[in-house]
Every structure is written in C-alpha cells, then in structure tokens.
C-alpha cells in the first residue's frame, strides 16, 4: 500500500514538474526566482496520455503478416470440441463394433480349431482315395493266348495313342469282314457295321479310361490344395471341382451313348438275321420249285 502511494506520488510530482531538478541533477541550475520549465514536458505528457489510451482502448494485438493468433487458437479450441463431440465419439463406437465383429468372426464364423479340423478331415479323405485310385490301376489282365493277349494289352492300355493299332488287334481275334463274293452284300454290310461298332466301343472305352485317369489325378491335386486352403479360397476350389464334374458328366454321357449304340446294333443284327433268313428261304423255295417243275 505504501509502495502504491509512493508510485502515485511520483507520477503526480512528475506531472506537475515540482521536482524536475531531481530528474536532471547534472543540468545547470537556473537563476534564483526564475521559474524552471522543461520545453519537452508537453510532449511527454501527450505521449503518456496516448499510451494510456492505447492500453485501455486499443484493438487486440495482431501477429506477423496480419494473422490473428487469438482467433486461430479460439478456432482450434472450437474444432477440438467439435472433433471430440462429433468424430471421436463415433470413432469409438466404430472401433467397438469392429472389435465385436472380429470377435464374432474368430469365435463363431471362422474358429481356427474348426477350420483345422475340416482340413484334417480332407487330408484323411485324400489318403483313402489315393489308396483307392491305386486299386483301379491294378493289373486285371487274364488272356492266355498270344492274339488275345496283344488285343487285351491295347484294350487295357488307357492310352488313346493306341487307338490306331486296335483294328489290327481286333481282326487278329475276330477276323476280318468276308471277302466280296464270299457272302451277300447285305451280310457283308451287317458284319462290317457290327465290327465297326464293336471297335468304336472299344476305342471309346480306351478314351474313357484315359479321361477318368485324368479326372482322378485332378481330384488328387484339388484335394491336396483344399487341405491347405484358406476359408476364402476353398470355394474357388469347389467351383473348379464343379467344372470338372460337369465335364465328367459329359464324358459319362459319351460312354453311355456308345453303349446304347452297341446294344442298338446288337438288336438290329438280330432283326437283320431274321430278314436274311427269310430272304434266303424264299430263294431256296424258288430253286426247289423250279427244279421240281422240270
């Protein structure tokens, strides 16, 4: 308080100029009775008033280049508040949802134990099927004579490149079509058609054997891939297997079609034999009738 009064007294004294000599002790002392006055005092007074006015009523300070730091800070504070209210809270909700989803996927949708169990099952199935595929590759030949052994080796070869050699082997076993003049044209046509169908069926059998081997090899390959696949890639392998099944169905249908043709030729042959018999009977009857008429 005393200090405050001291400052007030100093300012009042300075304003009235009563002890100006103390402020400038080195200046030359004026003559007695002459009133001392500083010519710059009005300027100092004006400057002091101006300073006070600026301090009391001056505008807020501006930073360098005219940027209002105060406004920026206020805006930043406001933005921080907005972010906390409208962004941070929803983000927390999203994060919680994501954690819930991840937990659901790990525990319900894609539990690692269940996936591993399925993979182990696939591995076990594959092992059994590989053993079974070997059974289909067992040697089942049983011919004892050279001609039939050669023919059988082609039939069971599972190799389509042997198709060309089948005709010779076939004729070694079943004989060729009768020579011209040795039988009626009808009979020769029938036997040729029948031989052709028999050979076609055998050739188709070789092709089907080769195709089924390819399918089994592909099944082995896909089975191995499934046993190490990810849950996302297993459906792709399933789609691939679907495509192969569709293809296999077509091959099965081709084999069935060949089988139907073979049986159709068989029944047509029986009918043809009756027709030929009837025709030959007519010829024979004519000959007998003619000879009896002589």
């Amino acid at each position, binding site marked *: 308080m005393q200090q405050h009064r001291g400052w007030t007294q100093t300012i009042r004294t300075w304003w009235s100029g009563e002890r100006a000599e103390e402020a400038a002790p080195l200046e030359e002392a004026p003559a007695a009775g002459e009133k001392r006055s500083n010519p710059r005092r009005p300027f100092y007074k004006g400057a002091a008033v101006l300073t006070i006015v600026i301090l009391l009523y001056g505008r807020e300070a501006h930073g360098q280049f005219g940027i209002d730091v105060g406004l920026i800070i206020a805006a930043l504070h406001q933005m921080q508040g907005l972010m906390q209210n409208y962004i941070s809270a929803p983000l927390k909700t999203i994060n919680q949802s994501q954690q819930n989803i991840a937990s659901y996927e790990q525990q319900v949708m894609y539990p690692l134990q269940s996936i591993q169990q399925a993979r182990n099952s696939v591995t076990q199935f594959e092992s059994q099927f590989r053993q079974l595929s070997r059974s289909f590759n067992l040697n089942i030949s049983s*011919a004892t004579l050279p001609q039939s052994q050669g023919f059988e080796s082609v039939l069971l070869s599972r190799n389509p490149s042997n198709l060309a050699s089948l005709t010779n082997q076939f004729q070694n076993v079943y004989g060729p079509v009768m020579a011209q003049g040795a039988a009626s044209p009808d009979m020769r046509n029938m036997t040729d058609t029948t031989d052709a169908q028999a050979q076609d069926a055998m050739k188709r059998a070789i092709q089907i054997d080769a195709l089924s081997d390819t399918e089994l090899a592909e099944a082995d390959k896909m089975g191995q891939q499934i046993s190490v696949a990810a849950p996302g890639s297993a459906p792709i392998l399933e789609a691939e297997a679907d495509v192969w099944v569709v293809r296999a169905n077509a091959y099965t249908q081709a084999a069935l079609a060949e089988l139907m043709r073979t049986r159709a030729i068989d029944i047509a042959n029986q009918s043809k034999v009756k027709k030929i018999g009837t025709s030959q009977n007519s010829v024979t009857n004519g000959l007998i009738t003619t000879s009896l008429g002589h």
Partner: protein
Amino acid sequence: MTNVFFTPFNSATLSSPQQLETVLHSRDVSQLGSLTSSFHGNFGTVPVANSAAPQDRIMMDIDDTLGQESLKTTIISDQAQDSILATADALENQVAVSTPGSSPFLTAQAQVANLRSQAYMQKMLAAELRQEAGMIAHENTLMKRRAQDAGDIGNQFKTALTR
C-alpha cells in the same frame, strides 16, 4: 439306408458257384487273384491246342478275358462305393459340427469326391463297353462263319440242283 445296402445276399447252392459268389461279393480287391481260379473252376479253361479250332480258342480266351475284367472291375468298384459312402458319412458328421468358416472345405471336398465318383463310374462304363463290344464282335464272328458256311452249302446245293 446303410443297413439296407449292406444286407448280405447269396444265391448259389453248389460249392464252386458259392465260392465264386463269395469272391464276387467280397468288395475286397485283395480277392482279385482268387477270382481267376474261381472263374476257371466254374467256367473252365481254354481248350488246349488242336482240341478246338484256333479261331474258337482265341474267341473263348478273349470272352473269358472280358468276362473276368468286368468281374474284377465290379469288385474294385464295390470297394470304391464303400469308400465313397464312408466319405459321405464322415462329411455328414463333419458338417454337423462345422462352422460357416469350415463348411467351404467340406463342400469343396464333397465336390472332389463327386468327381472321383464320376471317374469310377466311367471306369465301370469302360469295362461294360469292352464287354458289350466283345459280345457283338463274338456274335459277328459267328455270323461271318455262318455266312461263309451258308455260302459254301448254297454253292454246293446250286451245283447239285443244276446238274
């Protein structure tokens, strides 16, 4: 279904056919070797040389061969059926405890098993094709022979009648 499918049935009454039937119904590929002897026990062997026409011997041999091939294929296929049925049962058990994440493995495996099943069926069809083709080829050979014989007899008949 399993009980119905695996209910055994036998029809042979004599010892040799019973033995063959047992082998045929064995569903066991290790029995393939005994099938040949059992087959010969029931259907005989190819006649020795000079006891039948060469063509007949060859045809008897190839007919026996095709017959045995088909019978052996059925035994292998029976075993394949058992494996496929066992796989179906195992897959069904797995499906019962599967999760959405593990079921794609099982469906993919089922499709691969389906593909294998198709391949086995094709092998059976190939054997059936060989057998049917052999059957019509055999009949056709007999037809050729009869035609040849008929031609010969006809010529002799004509010659006799036109004298």
